[in-house]
C-alpha cells in the first residue's frame, strides 16, 4: 500500500460516489478558490472541518487517512519553509503571528490535498471520462484517458515482474551513487517500454476488430444526468463561494491566538 492508494478509486456505493463528477468538480474548484482566498487560519480550519463529514459519508476514512499521512512530509516541509522565510524577512511581526501564518499555509495545503483525495477516491475513472466526453472533449482523448487508467495496475505488475527477473539475474538496483542508480533502471525500462508498445499495437488491433470509427454518432452505454443531490452540492458550493468572497472583503478575521488569549 502506498500514498497513491489515498487517491485511487474504490468501487463502493455511497451518496458521494453517486454524485455527478461535474458537480464534484465544481465543489473542488470552489474549495480551491476559497482556500487561496484566505491567509488566516480560522477560515482554512473551517474548510478542513467541512470536508470531514463528506469523508465519512463516502466511507473512505481509511483511504483518506492514508492520503493525509502521505502528505504529512510535504506539510512539515511547507511549514518549515514558511516559518523560516517569514522569520528572516518579516522582521516586525511577532513570533506567534509568524507561527500562525505558517500553520495557515500548511492547513491550506492539507485542504487542497484533502479535496483532491475525496474527488479521486469517489469518482470512477469511467465516470470521469464520461464527464469529459459530455463536456465536449473529443471522444478519442477520453478513451485514451480511461484506457491509460485501466492499464496502470497492469503496467505496475509488469514492472514488478521485470524488476524481479532482472534482480534474479544479478542486477543491483539500490547500489552506487545517484547517477549509477538511474543507470540501474535502464534494464528495467527497456523491456517495459518494448512491452508497452507491443501491447498498444495489440490494443489497436482489437479496437479495429470491434468496429472502431464505424459511425460519427457513437452511442455511450452510460449517460450522466444532474440529479437533486448534484444540484444541492453545486448550490452549496456557490453559497460557500459567495459567503467567502463577502467575508474576505467585509469582515475582519481575528488571528486565532488573540481569541485564545
Amino acid at each position, binding site marked *: 500500500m502506498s500514498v497513491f492508494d489515498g487517491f485511487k478509486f474504490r468501487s463502493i456505493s455511497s451518496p458521494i460516489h453517486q454524485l455527478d463528477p461535474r458537480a464534484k468538480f465544481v465543489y473542488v474548484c470552489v474549495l480551491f478558490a476559497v482556500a487561496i482566498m484566505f491567509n488566516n487560519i480560522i477560515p482554512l480550519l473551517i474548510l478542513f472541518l467541512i470536508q470531514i463529514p463528506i469523508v465519512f459519508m463516502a466511507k473512505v476514512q481509511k483511504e483518506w487517512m492514508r492520503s493525509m499521512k502521505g502528505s504529512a512530509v510535504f506539510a512539515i516541509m511547507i511549514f518549515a519553509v514558511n516559518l523560516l522565510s517569514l522569520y528572516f524577512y518579516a522582521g516586525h511581526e511577532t513570533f506567534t503571528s509568524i507561527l500562525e501564518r505558517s500553520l495557515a499555509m500548511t492547513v491550506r495545503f492539507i485542504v487542497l490535498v484533502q479535496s483532491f483525495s475525496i474527488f479521486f477516491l469517489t469518482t470512477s475513472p469511467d465516470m470521469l471520462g464520461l464527464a469529459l466526453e459530455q463536456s465536449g472533449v473529443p471522444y478519442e482523448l477520453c478513451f485514451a484517458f480511461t484506457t491509460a487508467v485501466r492499464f496502470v495496475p497492469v503496467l505496475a505488475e509488469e514492472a514488478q515482474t521485470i524488476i524481479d527477473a532482472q534482480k534474479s539475474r544479478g542486477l543491483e538496483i539500490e547500489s552506487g551513487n545517484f547517477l549509477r542508480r538511474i543507470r540501474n533502471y535502464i534494464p528495467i525500462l527497456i523491456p517495459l517500454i518494448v512491452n508497452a508498445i507491443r*501491447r498498444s499495437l495489440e490494443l489497436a488491433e482489437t479496437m*479495429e*476488430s*470491434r468496429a*472502431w470509427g*464505424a*459511425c460519427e454518432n457513437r*452511442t455511450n452505454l452510460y449517460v450522466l444526468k444532474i440529479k437533486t443531490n448534484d444540484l444541492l452540492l453545486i448550490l452549496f458550493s456557490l453559497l460557500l463561494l459567495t459567503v467567502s468572497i463577502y467575508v474576505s472583503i467585509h469582515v475582519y478575521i481575528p488571528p486565532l491566538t488573540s481569541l485564545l488569549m
Partner: protein
Amino acid sequence: MAIIEAEELTYTYPVGEKPAFRDVNLKIEEGEFVIITGPSGCGKTTLCRCFNGLIPHFYGGKLEGEIRVCGLNVKEHPTYEIAQHVGMVFQNPENQLFALSVEKDVAFGLENLGVPRKEIRKRIDWALKITGTYNLKNRPPYELSGGQQQRAAIASVLAMNPDVMVLDEPTSFLDPVGAEKIFEVIGRLNREMSMTIILVEHMLDLVSRYADRIIVMHDGRIMMNGDPREVLVSEEARLVGIGIPKATMLYKILKHRGISLNRPPLYSEEACQVIREALSR
C-alpha cells in the same frame, strides 16, 4: 455460397522479404467449425488477419489474389465494416479488454456502431450469459483470471452478433481448465447458434471433437485440408509436428501392432468406446 472464399491468396508484410503465406485457396461454409493448425510461424495468425480486413487495411503490405468474406471483397471494405460480420478473438486476453468494467467492454463494439442504448443493454446481458460471465459484469478486467478475461473477450465479440468468429490461439495463455471452458463455449456457439467458427489451435486433444474440418498449414502454405480423423491419422500430419490427440495416437500405435479399431478416436471417452467395441467383437 461459401462464407469465406480465398483464391490464390498471397501476402507479404511491409517489412517482410518473402510472403508470410502464399497461394492459399480456401472455402469455408456457413455453420462450419474449422480448426487451423500448424507449427508456429507458418502463417496462421497472418491468414486470420485477412478474414476481417486487418490485412491489408491495418498492416499494409502486399495482398495478392482474391478474398471475399460474407460476399464482401476484403480489399475494398474497411475493417469496421467487415468486423460486423467477422468477430476476432486474439491470443492475449489481457490486451483485448480496455474498459474499466466487463460490461463497458462488451458494450464497446456496439457503441462504435451507434446501436441504441436499450438494445446494447439487452445484448450485453445475452452475450454475458452465453459465455458464463454474467456475474463478472461490473468487475474490472485486471481482477479477472485469464480464462475469465478470455470469455469476456468472446462476449465482447459475440455481442456484435457476427456471422463468423475467428479465434487465434485463444487458450495459449490459459490453464487446461480455463481452456476447456473456452472450448465448451465455442462448441455451443457452433451447435446451438450455428455460428461459423475458425479456431487456430495447437492442442487438439480438447477441441478436435467439435471440428468439422482441420486445416494444416506448413511454411506459409495449406498442406492438408479435410476431415479431422483423416487428417490426424495421416503420416504428413505427424511429420509436420502438429499436436495429434493422444486418443488418435493410441489408435495409430495399436494399428501398427496389428490391432485395428473401428475408427480413429479423437478423445479419451471415444477411445474407450472403440476399444470396448473391438474387445466385444
